[in-house]
C-alpha cells in the first residue's frame, strides 16, 4: 500500500496548552483510517493542521513522499484534502445553493446562475435528498445541514476526505447510508480519515485505527488486531472509571408534568410543538433524538430560561410555567447546561465563587451586604473534597480547569440544595471517559436518593445504559416512550426519524 499522506512528529501548542505533541501517522490509498481518542486528545487540532487552518510548531506533512507546507486551507484544498468539520462551516443566512456554490471548484466570477443551479440540483438528487435550493440553511434540520456539508466535500475531487464526527447528528439509519457512501468512495481509491468516539462505528468501518492520547499518537492497529475493549483500554490508559450501580426504585409519584407545551424560537419556528412529558420520582428519563429537535428548548423552558407560548409545566403540582430561573431552582429543578463554559460558569471567577453562585443570597455566605469569605472558602473546600475536583491553586479562574472538572464544579453547585429534579443537557459531551463515568455515577446515586433526572444525550448507548425510560423526540414532539431493557437501537432510530411505534411500555 502506498501512503498518500504521512504526518511526522507534528507538534502544536496554544498559549498554555500543548495540543499536539509528537504525532505521527499515515494514510494509504483506498483506506478508511480512524482517529480515536478522548475529547481533548487532539483529533480536531490535528485535522485542522492537515487542512491548513493551524500552522504546526514543528513536524512535517508529506504528500507522496514530499514535504508540504500549508499556509492556508486553499493550499490544502489544492492538494486534494477536504474536510467536514465537527462545527459546521455553513453560512446560515445563505441558501442551500449559495452554500454549495461557495465550495464548488472553478466557478467563474460571472457565473451562469441557471447552469450552476442545475449542477447543484443534480448533486442533491444523487443523494436522494429532499432539499429546496433557495431555502436558507438555518431553516433546515441539523441532519440536513450535515448532508450539505457532506455534499460540499464529496463534489470536490478530493483524494483525502476527513470526516470529523459526522455521525453525531445522524440517526442510525442515516449513518448506515453514510457508511455505504464511504465504502463506495473507498472502492474508487479515495482515502478517508474518520473521526468518531462511537466504538460501534469505529469497529464497523475502520481499516486501521490510530489512537491519540493527550496529544500523542499512541499506536496504530490494523483491522483484526483490535476489538472494542482493547481500543477502549488503549484510549483511556490507566484512568479509572468510577463504578456505579443502577437500582430500580421508580415510584409512581409524578414530580414533573408537562402538558401541551409549545415554544417558538427567535426565528418564529416551533422548537416544541404540543409536547407532553411525565417524570416520575426517582426516575432517570432519557431523551433520545437527533440534536436540534427541541431538546435544548425543553431544557431551557424547564429551567425557566425561556418562556412558553402555550402549555403548562407542573412541578409537584405547583405551576412553574414562565417563572424565572431562580424561582425554578427554588421549585426544585437543577440544570446542567449544554454549553458549560458560556452558560454553566462565570469563566473568569474562582472555583469558590462559582460554587456559591446559586446561593449567594442565603445568609450563610454573607455578613449583611458583604461576602462571608470564610464560609465561602469552607463551602468550597467541602465541595472540592466531596466531588474530587482538581481545582488548582487557590483563586484559579474556573476557565483553566479541564472540561471534566468544570462539569464537576457545575454539578457540585447544582446539587448543593438537594434538587428534586435535575435537567441534564448533554452532560457528558466533550468529557473524557473517567469524567463521563463520574457524571453517570452522580445521576445514578441521585436516583437512589429520590432525585429524578431528565437526561438529554446524543449517544444511544449512554441512554440505554442509564435510563429507566427513554422518551424519543422529533421536531419538537414526543414520539413515544420505550423501555431500554426491551428495545433495539433500530427501533429508537426509526422513532428519531419521526416514525410512530406500535404500542410499547
Amino acid at each position: 500500500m502506498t501512503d498518500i499522506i504521512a504526518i511526522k512528529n507534528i507538534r502544536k501548542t496554544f498559549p498554555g496548552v500543548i495540543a499536539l505533541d509528537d504525532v505521527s501517522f499515515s494514510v494509504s490509498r483506498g483506506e478508511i483510517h480512524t482517529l480515536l481518542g478522548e475529547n481533548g486528545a487532539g483529533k480536531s487540532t490535528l485535522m485542522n493542521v492537515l487542512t491548513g487552518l493551524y500552522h504546526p510548531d514543528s513536524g512535517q506533512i508529506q504528500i507522496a513522499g514530499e514535504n508540504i507546507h500549508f499556509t492556508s486551507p486553499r493550499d490544502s484544498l489544492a492538494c486534494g484534502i477536504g474536510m467536514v468539520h465537527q462545527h459546521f462551516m455553513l453560512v446560515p443566512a445563505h441558501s442551500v445553493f449559495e452554500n454549495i456554490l461557495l465550495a464548488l471548484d472553478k466557478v467563474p466570477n460571472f457565473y451562469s446562475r441557471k447552469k450552476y443551479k442545475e449542477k447543484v440540483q443534480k448533486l442533491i438528487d444523487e443523494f436522494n435528498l429532499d432539499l429546496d435550493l433557495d431555502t436558507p440553511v438555518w431553516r433546515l434540520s441539523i441532519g440536513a445541514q450535515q448532508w450539505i456539508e457532506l455534499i460540499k466535500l464529496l463534489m470536490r475531487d478530493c483524494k483525502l476526505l476527513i470526516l470529523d464526527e459526522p455521525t453525531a447528528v445522524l440517526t442510525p439509519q442515516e449513518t448506515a447510508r453514510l457508511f455505504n457512501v464511504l465504502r463506495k468512495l473507498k472502492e474508487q481509491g479515495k482515502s478517508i480519515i474518520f473521526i468518531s468516539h462511537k466504538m460501534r462505528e469505529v469497529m464497523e468501518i475502520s481499516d486501521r485505527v490510530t489512537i491519540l492520547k493527550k496529544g500523542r499518537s499512541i499506536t496504530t492497529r490494523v483491522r483484526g488486531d483490535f476489538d472494542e475493549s482493547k481500543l477502549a483500554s488503549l484510549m483511556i490508559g490507566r484512568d479509572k472509571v468510577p463504578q456505579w450501580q443502577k437500582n430500580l426504585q421508580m415510584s409512581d409519584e409524578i414530580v414533573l408534568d408537562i402538558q401541551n407545551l409549545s415554544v417558538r424560537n427567535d426565528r418564529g419556528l416551533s422548537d416544541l410543538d404540543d409536547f407532553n412529558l411525565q417524570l416520575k420520582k426517582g426516575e432517570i428519563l432519557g431523551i433520545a433524538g437527533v440534536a436540534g429537535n427541541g431538546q435544548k428548548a425543553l431544557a431551557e423552558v424547564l429551567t425557566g430560561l425561556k418562556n412558553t407560548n402555550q402549555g403548562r409545566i407542573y412541578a409537584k403540582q405547583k405551576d412553574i410555567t414562565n417563572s424565572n430561573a431562580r424561582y425554578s431552582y427554588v421549585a426544585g429543578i437543577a440544570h446542567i447546561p449544554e454549553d458549560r463554559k458560556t452558560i454553566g460558569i462565570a469563566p473568569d471567577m474562582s472555583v469558590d465563587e462559582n460554587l456559591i453562585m446559586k446561593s449567594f443570597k442565603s445568609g450563610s455566605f454573607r455578613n449583611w451586604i458583604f461576602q462571608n469569605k470564610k464560609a465561602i472558602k469552607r463551602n468550597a473546600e467541602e465541595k472540592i473534597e466531596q466531588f474530587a475536583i482538581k481545582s488548582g491553586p487557590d483563586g484559579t479562574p474556573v476557565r483553566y480547569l479541564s472540561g471534566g472538572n468544570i462539569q464537576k464544579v457545575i454539578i457540585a453547585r447544582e446539587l448543593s440544595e438537594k434538587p428534586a429534579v435535575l435537567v441534564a443537557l448533554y452532560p457528558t459531551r466533550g468529557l473524557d471517559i473517567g469524567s463521563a463515568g463520574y457524571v453517570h455515577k452522580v445521576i445514578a446515586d441521585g436516583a437512589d436518593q429520590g432525585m429524578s433526572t431528565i437526561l438529554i444525550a446524543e449517544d444511544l448507548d449512554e441512554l440505554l445504559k442509564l435510563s429507566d425510560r427513554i422518551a424519543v423526540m422529533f421536531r419538537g414532539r414526543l414520539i413515544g416512550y420505550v423501555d431500554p431493557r426491551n428495545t433495539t437501537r433500530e427501533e429508537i432510530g426509526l422513532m428519531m426519524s419521526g416514525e410512530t411505534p406500535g404500542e410499547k411500555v
Partner: protein
Amino acid sequence: MFEILLDATVRAGTPILFATLGAIINERAGIINLGIEGLMLIGALAGFSGTYLSGSLFVGVIAAFCATFIAGSIHALITVQLRGNQIVSGLALTMFGVGVTALFGKSMVGLTIVGFKRVAIPGLSQLPFIGKAFFNQDLLIYFSFFLVFMIWFFLYRTRWGLGVRSVGENPAAADTCGFSVSKYRFLAVTVGSGFVGIGGAYLSLASTPMWIENMSAGRGWIAVALVIFAGWSSPRAMLGAYLFGGITAMQLRFQAMGTTISAHILQMLPYFFTILVLVISTHRLQKGASQQPEGLGLPYDREDRK
C-alpha cells in the same frame, strides 16, 4: 411644486446614498466602519482640490476615490490585518478626517470652481412627475443609480460577491472553502471607503462647488444609521437616502416660505428622523427579521479556539 421638491430630494439624498452604499460594502464583509463622516470630508476636500488644481471634474472624482481608498486602508490595516477594535479604529478615522481636512483645507477656503452641470437624458427627462427629478440631473447622480444596481449585482450574482457576503457572515466557512478572508475584507473596506469619498466629493463638486470646513455636517453618521435601515441592501439604501433627502428638502422649503417655526428646529428634523428610524428598525431586528451579517464586528483569527 412637487417636481421641485423631488428634484431637491434627489440632490440632497445623493451624497448620503454614496456614503451608505460604501458603508454597506464594508459591513457586508463584516467590518463596521464608523469613519464614514471623516471619509466624506476627505473625499470632499480631495475632490475639490483635484478639480481646482487640474480644472477637470473627472480628475476631482478620481482624486476623491483614491484619497478615501488610502484613508480606508488605514482602517482595513487595523481591523483586518491587525484584528484591532473596529469601533475604536472607525471613530479614530472620523477624527482624523475632520482634523486633516481642516488643516489641509485652509488654503482652499474661499476658492471657487465650476461644479457639475445638469445633463438631461433625452426622452426620459420628459416623463411626467419623476422625469425632471431623476433624469435631468448631473453625471454623479446617474452614476449613483448605476452603482445601486452594480452593488446589488455584484453581491448576489458574482462569485466575488458571494465571497464578500460569506466572509461577513461566517469567515471560517469562507476560509475553509479556499477564500482569503483578509483579502476580501481588506478590499471591501478600501473600495467601500472609496465610494464614501465620492459621496463627499458630491458635496464639494455638485451641491455647493466650494470647500467649507466640516461641510459633511453629520451626513456620514446618517449613512451609518441608514445601513441598518436599509437592511444591508443597496436598493433599500436608495429609498432611505431619498427619505432623508426629502426631509432636508422639505425643511429648506419651509424656511424659504418663511414659516414661523424656528430654523433650528427645522434643521434638526433630518437628524431627529435618523433617531426615529433607528429605533423602528432595531425594534424590527429584535423581532427576528435581522439581515445583519452574522460576523459583523468580529475579527477573524484562524487559530482562535472556541
